[in-house]
Protein backbone atom coordinates (compact mmCIF):
# COMPACT_ATOMS: atom_id res chain seq x y z
CA UNK A 1 0.00 0.00 0.00
CA UNK A 2 2.94 2.31 0.56
CA UNK A 3 4.37 2.68 -2.92
CA UNK A 4 2.16 4.09 -5.62
CA UNK A 5 1.52 1.60 -8.39
CA UNK A 6 2.41 3.91 -11.27
CA UNK A 7 2.74 1.16 -13.79
CA UNK A 8 -0.69 -0.20 -12.96
CA UNK A 9 -2.23 3.27 -13.00
CA UNK A 10 -0.97 4.23 -16.43
CA UNK A 11 -1.53 0.80 -17.93
CA UNK A 12 -5.12 0.81 -16.75
CA UNK A 13 -5.64 4.34 -18.07
CA UNK A 14 -4.35 3.38 -21.49
CA UNK A 15 -6.43 0.21 -21.57
CA UNK A 16 -9.47 2.25 -20.57
CA UNK A 17 -8.80 4.75 -23.35
CA UNK A 18 -8.52 1.98 -25.91
CA UNK A 19 -11.76 0.45 -24.62
CA UNK A 20 -13.37 3.86 -25.09
CA UNK A 21 -12.24 4.12 -28.69
CA UNK A 22 -12.75 0.59 -29.97
CA UNK A 23 -15.67 0.55 -32.37
CA UNK A 24 -18.60 -1.46 -31.10
CA UNK A 25 -21.71 -2.44 -32.98
CA UNK A 26 -24.88 -0.39 -32.53
CA UNK A 27 -26.39 -0.61 -29.11
CA UNK A 28 -23.20 -1.61 -27.35
CA UNK A 29 -21.76 1.78 -28.23
CA UNK A 30 -24.56 3.48 -26.37
CA UNK A 31 -24.19 1.16 -23.39
CA UNK A 32 -20.43 1.55 -23.21
CA UNK A 33 -19.50 3.01 -19.82
CA UNK A 34 -16.90 5.76 -19.47
CA UNK A 35 -14.07 3.38 -18.63
CA UNK A 36 -11.50 6.10 -18.19
CA UNK A 37 -13.67 7.86 -15.60
CA UNK A 38 -14.08 4.60 -13.70
CA UNK A 39 -10.31 4.15 -13.68
CA UNK A 40 -9.70 7.69 -12.47
CA UNK A 41 -12.30 7.21 -9.76
CA UNK A 42 -10.77 3.95 -8.59
CA UNK A 43 -7.22 5.24 -8.32
CA UNK A 44 -8.30 8.50 -6.75
CA UNK A 45 -10.07 6.58 -4.02
CA UNK A 46 -7.34 3.96 -3.50
CA UNK A 47 -4.22 6.08 -3.86
CA UNK A 48 -5.29 9.67 -3.28
CA UNK A 49 -1.69 10.63 -2.60
CA UNK A 50 -0.35 9.78 -6.02
CA UNK A 51 -3.42 10.22 -8.15
CA UNK A 52 -5.71 13.17 -8.03
CA UNK A 53 -7.15 16.13 -9.79
CA UNK A 54 -4.17 16.55 -12.10
CA UNK A 55 -4.29 12.95 -13.25
CA UNK A 56 -8.01 13.25 -13.85
CA UNK A 57 -7.49 16.42 -15.84
CA UNK A 58 -4.87 14.78 -18.06
CA UNK A 59 -7.17 11.80 -18.67
CA UNK A 60 -10.02 14.16 -19.50
CA UNK A 61 -7.80 16.03 -21.91
CA UNK A 62 -7.03 12.71 -23.63
CA UNK A 63 -10.75 12.11 -24.01
CA UNK A 64 -11.15 15.60 -25.41
CA UNK A 65 -8.39 15.05 -27.92
CA UNK A 66 -10.28 12.09 -29.35
CA UNK A 67 -13.92 12.71 -28.69
CA UNK A 68 -14.63 16.15 -27.33
CA UNK A 69 -16.61 18.64 -29.31
CA UNK A 70 -14.82 21.31 -27.25
CA UNK A 71 -11.31 20.98 -25.87
CA UNK A 72 -11.29 21.12 -22.08
CA UNK A 73 -14.82 19.80 -21.65
CA UNK A 74 -14.00 16.28 -20.49
CA UNK A 75 -10.91 17.62 -18.72
CA UNK A 76 -13.09 19.68 -16.42
CA UNK A 77 -15.60 16.90 -15.86
CA UNK A 78 -13.04 14.19 -15.09
CA UNK A 79 -11.08 16.55 -12.83
CA UNK A 80 -14.30 17.09 -10.91
CA UNK A 81 -14.77 13.33 -10.53
CA UNK A 82 -11.17 12.98 -9.31
CA UNK A 83 -11.62 15.85 -6.88
CA UNK A 84 -14.74 14.36 -5.34
CA UNK A 85 -13.12 10.95 -5.11
CA UNK A 86 -9.98 12.29 -3.42
CA UNK A 87 -11.97 14.39 -1.00
CA UNK A 88 -14.23 11.55 0.08
CA UNK A 89 -11.78 8.70 -0.44
CA UNK A 90 -11.88 7.52 3.17
CA UNK A 91 -15.62 7.30 3.31
CA UNK A 92 -15.87 5.63 -0.07
CA UNK A 93 -13.02 3.18 0.48
CA UNK A 94 -14.52 1.64 3.60
CA UNK A 95 -17.92 0.98 2.04
CA UNK A 96 -18.94 -2.34 0.50
CA UNK A 97 -18.83 -2.55 -3.30
CA UNK A 98 -22.57 -2.15 -3.69
CA UNK A 99 -22.65 1.14 -1.80
CA UNK A 100 -19.58 2.26 -3.69
CA UNK A 101 -21.51 1.64 -6.88
CA UNK A 102 -24.30 3.88 -5.61
CA UNK A 103 -21.86 6.67 -4.82
CA UNK A 104 -20.31 6.17 -8.22
CA UNK A 105 -23.72 6.42 -9.87
CA UNK A 106 -24.23 9.83 -8.30
CA UNK A 107 -20.74 10.94 -9.36
CA UNK A 108 -21.26 9.69 -12.92
CA UNK A 109 -24.60 11.44 -13.20
CA UNK A 110 -22.86 14.62 -12.10
CA UNK A 111 -20.14 13.95 -14.67
CA UNK A 112 -22.68 13.53 -17.45
CA UNK A 113 -24.50 16.61 -16.24
CA UNK A 114 -21.33 18.71 -16.53
CA UNK A 115 -20.79 17.41 -20.06
CA UNK A 116 -24.42 18.05 -20.94
CA UNK A 117 -24.24 21.61 -19.65
CA UNK A 118 -20.99 22.41 -21.46
CA UNK A 119 -22.34 20.83 -24.65
CA UNK A 120 -25.30 23.13 -24.45
CA UNK A 121 -23.35 26.28 -23.62
CA UNK A 122 -20.80 25.71 -26.33
CA UNK A 123 -23.42 25.18 -28.99
CA UNK A 124 -23.06 21.44 -29.49
CA UNK A 125 -26.24 20.30 -27.79
CA UNK A 126 -27.00 16.61 -27.60
CA UNK A 127 -30.40 16.26 -26.05
CA UNK A 128 -31.16 12.58 -26.49
CA UNK A 129 -31.82 10.80 -23.19
CA UNK A 130 -29.49 8.03 -24.35
CA UNK A 131 -26.55 10.14 -23.28
CA UNK A 132 -27.29 9.35 -19.62
CA UNK A 133 -27.13 5.59 -20.10
CA UNK A 134 -23.33 5.24 -19.57
CA UNK A 135 -23.70 6.57 -16.02
CA UNK A 136 -25.96 3.63 -15.23
CA UNK A 137 -23.87 0.99 -16.99
CA UNK A 138 -20.75 2.42 -15.36
CA UNK A 139 -22.23 1.96 -11.92
CA UNK A 140 -23.46 -1.53 -12.82
CA UNK A 141 -20.04 -2.55 -14.05
CA UNK A 142 -18.29 -1.06 -11.04
CA UNK A 143 -17.82 -4.33 -9.06
CA UNK A 144 -16.18 -5.90 -12.09
CA UNK A 145 -13.94 -2.92 -12.90
CA UNK A 146 -12.96 -2.49 -9.25
CA UNK A 147 -12.14 -6.18 -9.02
CA UNK A 148 -9.90 -6.11 -12.07
CA UNK A 149 -8.15 -2.93 -10.94
CA UNK A 150 -7.65 -4.31 -7.42
CA UNK A 151 -6.04 -7.36 -8.96
CA UNK A 152 -3.64 -5.20 -10.96
CA UNK A 153 -2.92 -3.14 -7.85
CA UNK A 154 -1.98 -6.22 -5.86
CA UNK A 155 0.23 -7.53 -8.64
CA UNK A 156 2.19 -4.33 -9.12
CA UNK A 157 2.42 -2.90 -5.65
Amino acid at each position, binding site marked *: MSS*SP*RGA*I*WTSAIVA*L*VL*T*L*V*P*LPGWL*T*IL*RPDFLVLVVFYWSVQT*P*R*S*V*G*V*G*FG*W*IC*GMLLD*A*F*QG*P*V*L*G*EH*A*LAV*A*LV*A*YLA*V*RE*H*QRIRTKPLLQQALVLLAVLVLYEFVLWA*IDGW*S*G*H*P*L*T*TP*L*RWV*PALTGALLWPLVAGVLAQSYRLRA
Partner: protein
Amino acid sequence: MAGFGTRSGSPHSRGGSPGFRFTLYALLSVVIMVLDQRMDLLERARFLLQALTYPVEVSVNAPLAGWHWLEQAFTSRQTLEAENRQLRTRMRDLEVRTLRFDALARENAALLGLKRAVPPVAERWLPADIVDIDLSRLRQRVLIDRGTQNGVYRNQAVLDDAGVVGQTMHVGPWSAVVLLITDPEHDLPVQIARTGFRTIAVGTGDPNALALPYLPANADVRVGDVLVTSGLGGVFPSGYPVARITQIHRAAIQPMNQVLAKPFAHLQTDRAVMLLWFRPDSPAAPVHTHEGQLRSGNPAAQPLSPPPPPPPPACAPASGAAASGGAKTVVPGVSTQSRAAQAVPAAPATVKPTPVAPPRTSLRHHP
Protein backbone atom coordinates in the same frame (compact mmCIF):
# COMPACT_ATOMS: atom_id res chain seq x y z
CA MET B 1 4.72 10.12 -13.98
CA ALA B 2 1.75 9.30 -11.86
CA GLY B 3 2.63 11.79 -9.21
CA PHE B 4 0.59 14.81 -10.07
CA GLY B 5 -0.57 15.34 -6.55
CA THR B 6 1.44 16.91 -3.79
CA ARG B 7 3.69 14.48 -1.98
CA SER B 8 3.75 16.19 1.38
CA GLY B 9 1.84 14.93 4.35
CA SER B 10 -0.97 12.44 4.61
CA PRO B 11 -4.19 12.83 2.71
CA HIS B 12 -5.78 14.11 5.92
CA SER B 13 -3.55 17.10 6.30
CA ARG B 14 -4.07 18.48 2.86
CA GLY B 15 -7.83 18.86 3.00
CA GLY B 16 -7.88 22.16 1.16
CA SER B 17 -5.24 21.22 -1.33
CA PRO B 18 -7.29 19.10 -3.76
CA GLY B 19 -9.96 21.77 -3.74
CA PHE B 20 -7.44 24.44 -4.62
CA ARG B 21 -5.97 22.34 -7.39
CA PHE B 22 -9.40 21.53 -8.71
CA THR B 23 -10.23 25.22 -8.89
CA LEU B 24 -6.99 25.80 -10.78
CA TYR B 25 -7.61 23.00 -13.26
CA ALA B 26 -11.23 24.03 -13.70
CA LEU B 27 -10.16 27.55 -14.58
CA LEU B 28 -7.60 26.17 -17.01
CA SER B 29 -10.30 24.03 -18.65
CA VAL B 30 -12.62 26.99 -18.98
CA VAL B 31 -9.87 29.08 -20.59
CA ILE B 32 -9.15 26.28 -23.06
CA MET B 33 -12.84 25.88 -23.83
CA VAL B 34 -13.28 29.57 -24.50
CA LEU B 35 -10.20 29.61 -26.73
CA ASP B 36 -11.44 26.57 -28.59
CA GLN B 37 -14.80 28.19 -29.19
CA ARG B 38 -13.01 31.09 -30.88
CA MET B 39 -12.06 28.56 -33.52
CA ASP B 40 -9.00 30.22 -35.03
CA LEU B 41 -7.05 30.54 -31.81
CA LEU B 42 -6.73 26.82 -31.27
CA GLU B 43 -6.65 25.85 -34.92
CA ARG B 44 -2.92 25.04 -34.67
CA ALA B 45 -3.50 23.01 -31.52
CA ARG B 46 -6.34 21.11 -33.17
CA PHE B 47 -4.10 20.35 -36.13
CA LEU B 48 -1.41 19.08 -33.79
CA LEU B 49 -3.91 17.02 -31.81
CA GLN B 50 -5.15 15.39 -35.00
CA ALA B 51 -1.56 14.49 -35.81
CA LEU B 52 -0.89 13.13 -32.32
CA THR B 53 -4.07 11.13 -31.99
CA TYR B 54 -3.91 9.61 -35.45
CA PRO B 55 -1.32 6.89 -34.64
CA VAL B 56 -3.38 5.83 -31.63
CA GLU B 57 -6.54 5.74 -33.69
CA VAL B 58 -4.88 3.70 -36.39
CA SER B 59 -3.49 1.21 -33.91
CA VAL B 60 -6.82 0.85 -32.13
CA ASN B 61 -8.39 0.25 -35.51
CA ALA B 62 -5.61 -2.14 -36.56
CA PRO B 63 -7.19 -5.40 -35.34
CA LEU B 64 -10.42 -4.64 -37.18
CA ALA B 65 -8.56 -3.54 -40.29
CA GLY B 66 -6.50 -6.70 -40.05
CA TRP B 67 -9.67 -8.76 -39.82
CA HIS B 68 -11.06 -7.10 -42.93
CA TRP B 69 -7.79 -7.77 -44.69
CA LEU B 70 -7.87 -11.42 -43.67
CA GLU B 71 -11.45 -11.69 -44.83
CA GLN B 72 -10.39 -10.27 -48.16
CA ALA B 73 -7.39 -12.56 -48.39
CA PHE B 74 -9.40 -15.70 -47.77
CA THR B 75 -12.45 -15.06 -49.87
CA SER B 76 -13.11 -17.96 -52.12
CA ARG B 77 -12.48 -17.89 -55.81
CA GLN B 78 -16.20 -18.23 -56.41
CA THR B 79 -17.08 -15.18 -54.36
CA LEU B 80 -14.43 -13.18 -56.14
CA GLU B 81 -15.66 -14.30 -59.52
CA ALA B 82 -19.21 -13.41 -58.68
CA GLU B 83 -18.14 -10.03 -57.39
CA ASN B 84 -16.03 -9.46 -60.46
CA ARG B 85 -18.93 -10.28 -62.76
CA GLN B 86 -21.18 -7.96 -60.82
CA LEU B 87 -18.69 -5.12 -60.96
CA ARG B 88 -18.15 -5.66 -64.67
CA THR B 89 -21.87 -5.39 -65.30
CA ARG B 90 -22.10 -2.29 -63.18
CA MET B 91 -19.16 -0.70 -64.96
CA ARG B 92 -20.66 -1.41 -68.35
CA ASP B 93 -23.95 0.11 -67.27
CA LEU B 94 -22.23 3.22 -66.01
CA GLU B 95 -20.15 3.49 -69.16
CA VAL B 96 -23.18 3.22 -71.36
CA ARG B 97 -24.79 5.94 -69.30
CA THR B 98 -21.77 8.23 -69.61
CA LEU B 99 -21.63 7.60 -73.35
CA ARG B 100 -24.65 9.83 -73.61
CA PHE B 101 -23.31 12.32 -71.10
CA ASP B 102 -21.46 14.55 -73.55
CA ALA B 103 -24.37 14.51 -75.90
CA LEU B 104 -26.75 15.42 -73.08
CA ALA B 105 -24.49 18.21 -71.88
CA ARG B 106 -24.44 19.67 -75.38
CA GLU B 107 -28.19 19.25 -75.68
CA ASN B 108 -28.69 20.96 -72.33
CA ALA B 109 -26.45 23.84 -73.35
CA ALA B 110 -28.43 24.20 -76.57
CA LEU B 111 -31.72 24.21 -74.66
CA LEU B 112 -30.41 26.88 -72.32
CA GLY B 113 -29.26 28.96 -75.25
CA LEU B 114 -25.60 28.65 -74.44
CA LYS B 115 -22.76 28.56 -76.88
CA ARG B 116 -21.10 25.49 -75.40
CA ALA B 117 -21.53 22.92 -72.69
CA VAL B 118 -20.11 23.64 -69.27
CA PRO B 119 -17.77 20.98 -67.84
CA PRO B 120 -18.99 19.12 -64.75
CA VAL B 121 -18.45 20.87 -61.47
CA ALA B 122 -16.29 18.17 -59.88
CA GLU B 123 -12.74 18.70 -60.98
CA ARG B 124 -10.83 16.18 -58.88
CA TRP B 125 -11.72 13.54 -56.35
CA LEU B 126 -9.82 11.45 -53.90
CA PRO B 127 -10.98 8.23 -52.24
CA ALA B 128 -10.52 8.09 -48.48
CA ASP B 129 -10.88 5.13 -46.14
CA ILE B 130 -12.88 5.44 -42.98
CA VAL B 131 -10.88 4.67 -39.84
CA ASP B 132 -13.38 2.82 -37.72
CA ILE B 133 -13.12 4.55 -34.35
CA ASP B 134 -15.71 5.62 -31.85
CA LEU B 135 -15.30 9.37 -32.16
CA SER B 136 -18.33 10.07 -30.12
CA ARG B 137 -21.03 7.88 -28.76
CA LEU B 138 -24.03 9.73 -30.11
CA ARG B 139 -22.63 12.26 -32.52
CA GLN B 140 -22.47 11.46 -36.18
CA ARG B 141 -18.81 11.79 -37.01
CA VAL B 142 -16.26 9.61 -38.75
CA LEU B 143 -12.52 9.73 -39.16
CA ILE B 144 -10.94 9.44 -42.61
CA ASP B 145 -7.34 8.73 -43.48
CA ARG B 146 -6.68 11.83 -45.56
CA GLY B 147 -5.47 15.19 -44.35
CA THR B 148 -3.70 18.36 -45.41
CA GLN B 149 -0.92 16.21 -46.86
CA ASN B 150 -3.46 15.21 -49.48
CA GLY B 151 -4.73 18.73 -49.92
CA VAL B 152 -7.83 18.23 -47.80
CA TYR B 153 -9.24 21.46 -46.41
CA ARG B 154 -11.81 22.41 -43.77
CA ASN B 155 -15.45 22.25 -44.86
CA GLN B 156 -14.69 20.12 -47.86
CA ALA B 157 -17.51 18.15 -49.41
CA VAL B 158 -17.51 14.39 -48.80
CA LEU B 159 -19.64 12.03 -50.86
CA ASP B 160 -20.03 8.35 -51.49
CA ASP B 161 -21.30 6.52 -54.54
CA ALA B 162 -24.92 7.18 -53.60
CA GLY B 163 -25.03 10.71 -52.29
CA VAL B 164 -23.78 13.40 -49.96
CA VAL B 165 -22.04 12.11 -46.82
CA GLY B 166 -20.92 15.24 -44.99
CA GLN B 167 -18.12 17.71 -44.73
CA THR B 168 -14.68 17.80 -43.12
CA MET B 169 -14.50 19.43 -39.72
CA HIS B 170 -11.11 19.07 -38.02
CA VAL B 171 -8.33 18.44 -40.49
CA GLY B 172 -4.95 17.08 -39.44
CA PRO B 173 -1.93 16.25 -41.54
CA TRP B 174 -2.97 12.66 -42.23
CA SER B 175 -6.53 12.49 -41.02
CA ALA B 176 -9.73 14.46 -40.90
CA VAL B 177 -12.95 14.31 -38.93
CA VAL B 178 -16.03 14.27 -41.14
CA LEU B 179 -19.26 15.70 -39.81
CA LEU B 180 -22.05 13.60 -41.31
CA ILE B 181 -25.18 15.22 -42.67
CA THR B 182 -27.20 13.37 -40.04
CA ASP B 183 -25.35 14.98 -37.12
CA PRO B 184 -27.69 17.28 -35.18
CA GLU B 185 -25.21 20.09 -35.76
CA HIS B 186 -25.27 19.77 -39.53
CA ASP B 187 -27.56 21.92 -41.65
CA LEU B 188 -27.60 21.26 -45.35
CA PRO B 189 -29.18 23.64 -47.87
CA VAL B 190 -31.24 21.45 -50.19
CA GLN B 191 -33.75 21.72 -52.96
CA ILE B 192 -36.66 19.48 -53.79
CA ALA B 193 -35.70 18.18 -57.21
CA ARG B 194 -39.27 18.01 -58.52
CA THR B 195 -40.28 21.57 -57.67
CA GLY B 196 -37.01 23.43 -57.12
CA PHE B 197 -38.24 24.46 -53.69
CA ARG B 198 -35.34 25.34 -51.39
CA THR B 199 -35.10 24.44 -47.74
CA ILE B 200 -32.68 23.18 -45.11
CA ALA B 201 -32.13 19.54 -44.18
CA VAL B 202 -31.12 19.20 -40.56
CA GLY B 203 -29.44 16.15 -39.03
CA THR B 204 -31.44 14.25 -36.44
CA GLY B 205 -28.71 12.18 -34.82
CA ASP B 206 -30.28 9.11 -36.36
CA PRO B 207 -28.10 7.86 -39.24
CA ASN B 208 -31.24 7.03 -41.22
CA ALA B 209 -33.07 10.31 -41.02
CA LEU B 210 -32.82 13.94 -41.97
CA ALA B 211 -35.45 16.43 -40.86
CA LEU B 212 -36.88 19.28 -42.90
CA PRO B 213 -38.19 21.48 -40.10
CA TYR B 214 -38.66 24.63 -42.16
CA LEU B 215 -41.17 23.46 -44.72
CA PRO B 216 -44.38 25.48 -44.48
CA ALA B 217 -47.60 23.55 -44.20
CA ASN B 218 -48.67 24.45 -47.73
CA ALA B 219 -45.40 23.46 -49.37
CA ASP B 220 -45.65 21.07 -52.27
CA VAL B 221 -43.92 17.95 -50.90
CA ARG B 222 -44.70 14.31 -51.45
CA VAL B 223 -43.32 11.13 -50.04
CA GLY B 224 -40.70 9.91 -52.49
CA ASP B 225 -39.51 13.36 -53.52
CA VAL B 226 -35.78 13.54 -54.03
CA LEU B 227 -33.71 16.18 -52.28
CA VAL B 228 -30.59 17.52 -53.98
CA THR B 229 -28.05 20.05 -52.76
CA SER B 230 -29.04 23.59 -53.63
CA GLY B 231 -25.54 25.04 -53.89
CA LEU B 232 -26.17 27.60 -51.19
CA GLY B 233 -24.05 27.62 -48.06
CA GLY B 234 -20.70 27.45 -49.77
CA VAL B 235 -19.80 23.82 -49.18
CA PHE B 236 -21.63 21.60 -51.61
CA PRO B 237 -22.20 22.36 -55.27
CA SER B 238 -25.76 22.21 -56.47
CA GLY B 239 -27.42 19.13 -57.81
CA TYR B 240 -25.93 16.29 -55.78
CA PRO B 241 -28.47 13.78 -54.44
CA VAL B 242 -29.00 13.93 -50.69
CA ALA B 243 -32.07 12.04 -49.54
CA ARG B 244 -35.54 10.80 -50.35
CA ILE B 245 -38.55 11.97 -48.39
CA THR B 246 -40.04 9.15 -46.36
CA GLN B 247 -42.52 10.71 -43.98
CA ILE B 248 -44.75 13.75 -43.90
CA HIS B 249 -46.81 14.62 -40.87
CA ARG B 250 -49.27 17.32 -41.63
CA ALA B 251 -50.68 18.70 -38.42
CA ALA B 252 -53.44 21.17 -39.06
CA ILE B 253 -52.62 23.30 -36.06
CA GLN B 254 -48.94 23.64 -36.84
CA PRO B 255 -47.53 26.13 -39.31
CA MET B 256 -44.75 23.74 -40.33
CA ASN B 257 -44.83 20.23 -41.62
CA GLN B 258 -42.81 17.57 -39.92
CA VAL B 259 -40.96 15.95 -42.76
CA LEU B 260 -38.34 13.23 -42.59
CA ALA B 261 -36.04 12.04 -45.33
CA LYS B 262 -33.71 9.08 -45.63
CA PRO B 263 -30.19 9.85 -46.87
CA PHE B 264 -29.05 8.13 -50.04
CA ALA B 265 -25.48 7.76 -48.77
CA HIS B 266 -24.75 4.53 -46.92
CA LEU B 267 -23.73 6.39 -43.80
CA GLN B 268 -23.58 3.32 -41.57
CA THR B 269 -21.95 0.80 -43.85
CA ASP B 270 -19.51 2.95 -45.79
CA ARG B 271 -15.90 1.90 -45.48
CA ALA B 272 -14.66 4.42 -48.04
CA VAL B 273 -15.81 7.85 -49.14
CA MET B 274 -14.87 10.44 -51.76
CA LEU B 275 -13.41 13.88 -51.17
CA LEU B 276 -14.27 16.37 -53.88
CA TRP B 277 -12.61 19.45 -55.33
CA PHE B 278 -14.65 21.75 -57.52
CA ARG B 279 -14.05 23.89 -60.53
CA PRO B 280 -14.48 27.33 -58.98
CA ASP B 281 -15.72 28.88 -62.22
CA SER B 282 -18.48 26.36 -62.74
CA PRO B 283 -22.00 27.73 -62.29
CA ALA B 284 -22.81 24.89 -59.93
CA ALA B 285 -19.78 25.43 -57.70
CA PRO B 286 -20.26 26.59 -54.14
CA VAL B 287 -18.57 29.80 -53.20
CA HIS B 288 -16.16 29.92 -50.27
CA THR B 289 -17.35 32.54 -47.85
CA HIS B 290 -15.69 33.97 -44.81
CA GLU B 291 -17.32 34.13 -41.46
CA GLY B 292 -19.71 36.99 -41.07
CA GLN B 293 -20.22 37.23 -44.79
CA LEU B 294 -23.63 36.29 -46.01
CA ARG B 295 -23.51 32.86 -47.63
CA SER B 296 -24.50 32.96 -51.24
CA GLY B 297 -24.22 31.09 -54.47
CA ASN B 298 -21.34 31.32 -56.85
CA PRO B 299 -20.93 34.95 -57.94
CA ALA B 300 -19.87 33.63 -61.29
CA ALA B 301 -23.24 32.01 -61.46
CA GLN B 302 -25.22 35.16 -60.80
CA PRO B 303 -27.17 36.81 -63.56
CA LEU B 304 -25.20 39.28 -65.67
CA SER B 305 -22.42 39.72 -63.19
CA PRO B 306 -19.68 42.16 -64.21
CA PRO B 307 -17.73 39.95 -66.63
CA PRO B 308 -15.15 38.19 -64.49
CA PRO B 309 -11.75 37.57 -66.06
CA PRO B 310 -12.56 34.22 -67.59
CA PRO B 311 -9.70 31.78 -67.98
CA PRO B 312 -11.80 29.30 -69.92
CA PRO B 313 -14.43 30.53 -72.31
CA ALA B 314 -16.84 28.38 -70.33
CA CYS B 315 -17.47 31.37 -68.14
CA ALA B 316 -19.82 33.13 -70.46
CA PRO B 317 -22.20 30.19 -70.62
CA ALA B 318 -21.73 29.93 -66.88
CA SER B 319 -23.55 33.14 -66.16
CA GLY B 320 -26.20 32.26 -68.69
CA ALA B 321 -26.82 28.88 -67.17
CA ALA B 322 -27.09 30.46 -63.78
CA ALA B 323 -29.53 33.02 -64.99
CA SER B 324 -31.94 30.39 -66.14
CA GLY B 325 -31.21 28.31 -63.06
CA GLY B 326 -31.91 31.26 -60.85
CA ALA B 327 -35.16 32.00 -62.57
CA LYS B 328 -36.26 28.45 -62.12
CA THR B 329 -35.61 28.39 -58.42
CA VAL B 330 -37.76 31.43 -57.82
CA VAL B 331 -40.85 29.82 -59.27
CA PRO B 332 -42.28 28.48 -56.02
CA GLY B 333 -43.44 31.79 -54.63
CA VAL B 334 -44.46 29.98 -51.49
CA SER B 335 -40.89 29.94 -50.35
CA THR B 336 -41.11 33.50 -49.25
CA GLN B 337 -43.09 33.24 -46.07
CA SER B 338 -41.65 31.48 -43.08
CA ARG B 339 -38.89 29.75 -44.97
CA ALA B 340 -37.46 33.09 -45.86
CA ALA B 341 -35.42 33.19 -42.70
CA GLN B 342 -33.21 30.37 -43.85
CA ALA B 343 -32.86 29.99 -47.56
CA VAL B 344 -33.78 33.22 -49.21
CA PRO B 345 -31.60 35.80 -47.42
CA ALA B 346 -28.77 34.71 -49.64
CA ALA B 347 -30.58 36.11 -52.62
CA PRO B 348 -30.62 39.84 -51.91
CA ALA B 349 -26.92 39.80 -51.15
CA THR B 350 -26.12 38.20 -54.42
CA VAL B 351 -28.36 40.58 -56.25
CA LYS B 352 -26.74 43.73 -54.88
CA PRO B 353 -23.66 43.82 -57.08
CA THR B 354 -25.78 43.19 -60.14
CA PRO B 355 -28.56 45.71 -60.36
CA VAL B 356 -29.24 44.50 -63.88
CA ALA B 357 -31.48 41.53 -64.59
CA PRO B 358 -34.71 43.17 -63.49
CA PRO B 359 -37.18 40.26 -63.66
CA ARG B 360 -35.31 38.14 -61.16
CA THR B 361 -34.46 40.84 -58.68
CA SER B 362 -38.02 42.03 -58.52
CA LEU B 363 -39.28 38.53 -58.00
CA ARG B 364 -36.82 37.88 -55.22
CA HIS B 365 -37.66 41.00 -53.37
CA HIS B 366 -41.28 40.01 -52.94
CA PRO B 367 -41.62 39.36 -49.23
